[in-house]
């Protein structure tokens, strides 16, 4: 299991569209991937879980991955997040 801190830079936080992009990307990997925010940990491949976190703009989350491709998964998702999910 490895982890990394990521910041949400999007204007409205991790709302439907960024969450859709995030889940789509996370689902490409075999590893188990989680997001932790305010003490709650959810499956990063679950859009419903992500939405329920209601991540505000500017928030910092912990991204965790465990599995054969954990390194690549964390790297790809961190880049996607930094690029504001290629949406803005």
């Amino acid at each position, binding site marked *: 299991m490895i982890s990394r801190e990521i910041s949400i830079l999007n204007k*409205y*936080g991790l*709302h*439907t*569209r960024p*969450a*859709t992009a995030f*889940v*789509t990307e996370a689902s490409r990997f075999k590893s188990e991937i989680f997001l932790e925010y305010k003490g709650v940990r*959810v*499956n990063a*491949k*679950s*859009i*419903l*879980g992500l*939405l*329920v976190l*209601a991540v*505000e703009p500017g928030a910092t989350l912990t991204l965790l991955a465990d599995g054969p491709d954990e390194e690549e998964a964390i790297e790809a998702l961190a880049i996607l997040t930094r690029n504001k999910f290629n949406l803005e």
Partner: protein
Amino acid sequence: MKKIKGVRISPGIVCGPIYYFEKGRLNVPRHFIRAEDFDSELQRFKQAIQASVNELKQVRDLVLDHLDEEHARIIDAQLIAVQDEEMIKAVENLMHQERKNVTWAYYEVMNEYEALLLKTYSQFFKERTADLKDIKKRVLHHMVGEEETILPDINKPSIIVAEKISPGDLIHIEHNLALGLITWEGGFDSHAGILARAFRIPYISNVDLIEELVSYSEIILDADNEEILLDISGSLKQEYLTRITEFQKLRKRIISAKVANSTRDKVPYHIYLNVGFVDEVEAIDPQLIQGIGLFRTEFLCIEQNTIPDEEVQFQAYRAVLKKMGHLPVIFRVFDFGRDKLLAMLDLEVIQEDHVFDEWGGIGFLLENPDILKAQLRALLRASIHGNVKIMLPLVMFTDEVRQTIELLHEVQRELQEQGIPFRKGIELGAMIETSSILEQLDGLADLVDFFSIGTNDLALYLIGSGRTVDLTRNYYHPKIFNAINLIVSAAKRANVPVTVCGEMASDPYALIGLTAMGIRSVSISTSALAEISKEISALDTKMLENLADLILSADSAATIYSLLVQFHQDCLG
């Protein structure tokens, strides 16, 4: 006794218990399951998810083609959410641990997600519950299936009371369970209104004391007099019950005598029927009528919640044609106005979005040639079973007709190559209901075999106004009569028959005006058939000669209205 007033949408009178229909409330079967049922329950769930995914993909393609990426992403999110793995795990757990059946478990899990979203501090996330509701409804619909329709759950014949009702809701109520309808919102031309008249369900709207009604165990809905009667007893109640029995008799047989085929002075007149459902045709005796002037094929889509494939369409069209025998049946190809499409897609999240205003008509179908081709194939295949005519809705440009004819030829070639029989020389007609086509009538007449005037949409184009707003007054607007005069003249020049198939033709006063303008053919809903037939057989066209000039020189709807009411009293009253 107490009275509550409303506005009549569909005539009739009934007495019965109330069913309060709360929009969006779902009826979810709940029971405990045995361990051996677990797999089959889960299987059912997975199939429902797959069916929902397929539907959403269809919706996504439509949205992407006709709207933009932005709206397609809403559907993308739903596509991912509907197959969310955590959600599926949670449902499985609930089934395992608490032995709840799959619909119950799914319902609880989705509600839990909704509750969590509502707990968040951001308005933005709270609003996402609309997406969740859409998804939940869709998946549940697939699990609960046809027999136990989830919306609404009525188990005995009742008068349905609701804030508003969509055509989709109304279709899912078994016809004999809806005794009457009472709503707060909804106009004469709303599709629920058209449906209520088609099935002869008494309906009044603009009733603002909806909540008050709920406490009564039995009420009388007198749509003829636009009122609801509460706490009624004794001899007065008896009077009403007599009228109700009369209405029930009338309701069963739409018409008992042959529809009039000429005016009093023996001028030939055609009265056709407007129909939206195969079921509706079942109740009609073809011996008594002259044909179907408007079959609204898009109602098949509302009924099925999706665009039916060629085979399903073929079966439906064939059933109608077989029942009608040699009588003409004019099938209008899918007319997806914003309201109809939304009712079909059943997506609350984009319900309020006005970009959908421009959808509809033959223009939309030409942009989706696969949909149009499948429909034309189904119609041509069915054509050997009766007298098919094809009509194009909301024609804006003559070029749209030209493109449709090309497509029709293509379909004919294909059928020929495949050795599938079809009738040759099927008549093609155009609906005249937009302002832009009024300027190209001569060119249009060269391309088609008949005109049909859609007064509902024509009024929207010429005068403007929302479909749920009451348009009755607009029927008398000088702009409408001027347009009709224009259309009748163009039709005469080209020797093309013209029919009025909007709701205007069911209005006894407007009908006089139409006949004065030279209209000799109308298509109306079954509920108006008896009355209009009687009126036409009593009309004398010789007395109408001066009326046309008076109408065309009038400068307001009020003037025309009083002219027509006066004529009605003098000559028919």
